[in-house]
């Protein structure tokens, strides 16, 4: 996937704060292998909330899924291009509180929180 397309695809997939937090969690902890229940415990959301957003992140190539149903396991993408996009477009802007607020405001402005 070309850099620009990849960036657009990732941007379309990360359209709310929970997805942003999920992607950042996997980006910062790239060897995570867990089910929705385990991930929900790490992030403080309910398993249902996590489960509801996973299919879109998997479809966008941000996460990998092993197995189906409640026992499905998730890992971060192994695609270096996607990781580079997340690093450049999100991770570097996620480091300071002010940048984070701006990023979150931008997502909130999209209307889906």
């Amino acid at each position, binding site marked *: 996937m070309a850099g620009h397309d990849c960036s657009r695809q990732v941007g379309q997939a990360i359209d709310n704060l929970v997805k942003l937090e999920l992607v950042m969690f996997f980006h910062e*902890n790239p*060897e995570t*292998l*867990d*089910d929705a*229940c385990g991930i929900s415990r*790490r992030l403080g959301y309910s398993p249902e909330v996590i489960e509801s957003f996973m299919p879109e992140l998997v479809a966008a190539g941000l996460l990998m899924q092993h197995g189906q149903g409640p026992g499905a396991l998730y890992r971060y993408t192994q695609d270096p291009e996607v990781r580079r996009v997340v690093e450049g477009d999100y991770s570097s802007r996620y480091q300071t509180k002010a940048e984070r607020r701006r990023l979150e405001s931008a997502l909130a402005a999209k209307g889906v929180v």
Partner: protein
Amino acid sequence: MARAKLGVAGLDAILHGGVVPGNAILVEGTPGAGKTTLGMQFIYAGITQHNEPGLIVTFEEFPSQMYRDAGMLGWDLQALANENKLKIISTSPAVFRQETAGPSGLITQMAREIGAERVMVDSISHFQRLTQDPAEQREIFNSLVNMLKRGGFTAMFTKEVKSRSGDEVSFEEYASDTALRLTYEVEASTQRARYVEVVKARGQDFIPGKHSFLIGRGGITVFPSVALSTDDDAAKAHIERIDSGIPGLDEMLHGGLIRAWSLLLVGPAGSGKTIFGLQSVCFAASKGESCLFLSLRERPSMLRATAESLSMPLGTRGGGSVDLVYQAPLPLNPYALVYRLLQWIDRKHYTRVVIDSLDDLSGGLGDPGRALSLIRLVLDELRRRGVTSILIWGSRSGDEAGTVASTPQSGLVDAIISLRFVESQGVVRSGLAILKSRGTAHSTDIRPYQITSQGLSVVSRRVTVYDD
């Protein structure tokens, strides 16, 4: 037998070189005791010192936090992960169990990808999430240990304990090959200190007891609480009489001190103990010896002023030297200081050392048994190195000769000299007595001594003035 070094200075020495490769090592401890740090060090040392890639499995702490914390200890785990020598896997106990159960498990594959030889699981306390039934928990842990052994991994598991009263034994200790207990204890009611104890090491010998450790840049350093070698050939080689540097005293000792002896110098405040110590090392330096005065009480500037007022210039002279080192008694890890002292001795070849004072050094430990063990360690290591030591001990009054001679520490030293005040006919006088001189004849007199601008000297006559 081959050993897998844990990579923790001091701890490998306690284990006589490390653990048997392929062992399952349990690390139990209270919060803040250093379990995760020990586990990370085990993995880091495996990769960097023994070329053994490692896998860390964390059920609670985020890997990103581990990378950050390791960085603060000087370990670049991220670089090792980038080189494919390390993976820090964040997962849940159930997923971990499922994905390590067979050769096609995802975690098994991840371990295979980097050729992992060491595994650290932090912490197995989270297996309680799987079941509350102790029998099932035991079965889960046993199967985990067996799975890792089958894979040929040397594995370390951390386990949280709420408190440790001492004797209770967990089922994980039975199933593990090596069990370490870490504690973070309140000591002398004002500070906390960390200790590690090997409670089990299957198929190998180890040094029992609790050993102090510190966490700092570079990770954990353990300070064995006993001398690692009892070889004292340096001290035994020959009995050599040496001048104490105190006029009149050598005659009372029937020829002077004996090299590599430890002399406990006891006396109340103001009796001249520090002057005695300074004078002895200055004298030895004037004869070409390299000496150290370790002060936990007076600062070097005060000691220098005292020495100069008594015509005892410090520093290098006549081929010898006196180094002054000050260490504030608090905050102090006495074991760390003792090991630093031994490093100085080894580096600068000190032959005469004064510690002012032994009660300041061991006082921070609170527990009398532990304080005695520290003193034994100091004496054993100094003797082994052939160092003559003067250990100053403050007493409350001048009438403690009998008490001092019967204290446990008195049995450890070779000689005891008491400085005391005696009030007689409205005058306070100073008297010196030799309470002990191991296996050698000595004067049993109490002789007066004086401190003048030339230092401390014993008056070479027996006096009866103290008798009322």
